[in-house]
């Protein structure tokens, strides 16, 4: 199925009040963030999308694909499900080795060449992790970051899904700058639930949640993209700091002056 657009129509929040935003339209290629305080209903909204809710979840929202309700066969048959969803629960429970698991998943998803899909998935994942994962290890033996990286790679490569939903990509210690960069090579709809200002500002627009409802849509403009660039530089400083600490080095006062482009730098590079 060719997906051109996804529409969310509003329902109700935690105490029955109506969504402030009545309609959200997402086009193929859009990157959208869902933001809001803890407990504000971000996961609930992304769940609605993942389930193609149609007035049958507590929020009573409706999801339309290309203007229509998704036929039940499409969400029932995994090989035809257009959505890949990476949830906040990062642990695998599967008792299979990574390689076996990916092989089964690739055949469920009718990959043309199962083995090369598995290999591409492992390579993709290993670009996001600190230490590469070994495909002969059990799924449950992976670290938190490796698990998250594998889930993302699996969704993009094996799932080959036109719509990718990610709940809090930032919390797993994977290289999210690299992840965004890699993801943008694929033309898909990306929806991120995020507390990360960088990801939010890099998106085309963001849905602001409060009290279980969608309260506002904010589109990123030029000024915000510039701000995102500044945040990226800030991230670089944090990354450098992290590298210092990981390498067992000491951190000196004044490290903030090491922002790329800053005039003077007291500490180490």
């Amino acid at each position, binding site marked *: 199925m060719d997906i051109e657009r996804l529409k969310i129509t509003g329902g109700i929040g935690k105490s029955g009040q109506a969504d402030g935003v009545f309609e959200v339209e997402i086009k193929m290629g859009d990157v959208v963030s869902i933001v809001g305080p803890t407990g504000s209903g971000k996961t609930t909204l992304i769940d609605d999308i993942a389930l193609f809710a149609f007035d049958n979840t507590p929020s009573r929202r409706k999801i339309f694909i290309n203007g229509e309700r998704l036929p039940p066969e499409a969400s029932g048959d995994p090989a035809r499900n257009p959505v890949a969803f990476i949830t906040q629960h990062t642990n695998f*429970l599967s*008792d299979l080795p990574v390689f076996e698991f990916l092989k089964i998943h690739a*055949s469920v998803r009718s990959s043309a060449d199962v083995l090369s899909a598995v290999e591409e998935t492992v390579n993709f994942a290993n670009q996001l992790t600190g230490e590469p994962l070994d495909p002969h290890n059990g799924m449950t033996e992976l670290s938190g970051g490796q698990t998250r990286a594998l889930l993302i790679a699996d969704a993009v490569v094996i*799932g080959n899904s036109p719509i990718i939903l990610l709940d809090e990509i930032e919390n797993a210690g994977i290289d999210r700058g690299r992840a965004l960069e890699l993801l943008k090579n694929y033309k898909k709809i990306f929806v991120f639930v995020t507390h990360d200002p960088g990801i939010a500002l890099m998106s085309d627009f963001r849905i602001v949640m409060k009290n279980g409802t969608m309260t506002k849509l904010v589109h990123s403009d030029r000024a915000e993209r510039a701000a995102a660039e500044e945040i990226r530089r800030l991230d670089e400083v944090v990354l450098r700091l992290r590298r210092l600490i990981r390498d067992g080095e000491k951190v000196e006062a004044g490290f903030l002056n090491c922002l790329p482009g800053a005039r003077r730098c007291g500490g180490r590079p």
Partner: protein
Amino acid sequence: MKAVICAGPSTAGKTTVLRQAARRLIKAGMKPAYLKIDVQYASEDAIFASEFGIPAKKVFSGELCPDHCNVMVFSDAVAWAQECGASVLMLETAGLCLRCSPYVEGALGIAVLEATAGMNLPMKIGPMLTLADAAVITKIDLISQAEREVFRAGVMKAAPGIPVFESNALYGIGIDAVAARITAAPDIQGIDFKMRGSPPVGTCTVCVGRKETGWQKHFGVVRPLDNGIFYRGE
């Protein structure tokens, strides 16, 4: 009246699925009655009676395997539910035997499996899944989508051709389709029913009271560690 037999390992979510289904069936104007079969402890009948005010009952299988107990009591249960004026009998069984089927010809058999139980579960539970009319996978909220798809593929491989419903039974997500399947089931006919599948081939001497270990001490269908089963006796 329709009859539904719902089986699945302990904590799979049978009660949760049936509660969510009952809520929907009642809303659609049906009158459920609920019967729980368990080995030695059960409290679900009280939940159904207080939550929905419907006729609810439990029976302990005790010495019998719960599936065999089901065979013994099923006709009585149908008569009981009909006396109560029910339009659907929902029977929950632990289905512990794994050799024989908890299902009965003419009644809708639903297997409940929790997605968190390990990828090989569908292969382990035998006729509880393979002879069912439908499978419900619960707890999809607790695992990744990739694992969901692989688990579902395992269920479909073990029981080809039956509908598989994925659910987060706690929130009732995915249960509409289960309720619709129950609504679409034909009414049961009469009060004489046959168990699905064949009962196990032999009763072992352990079942009738012999406690010594070692196949040499036993008769009937026996098995050593390294060979298959064989018949020992006169």
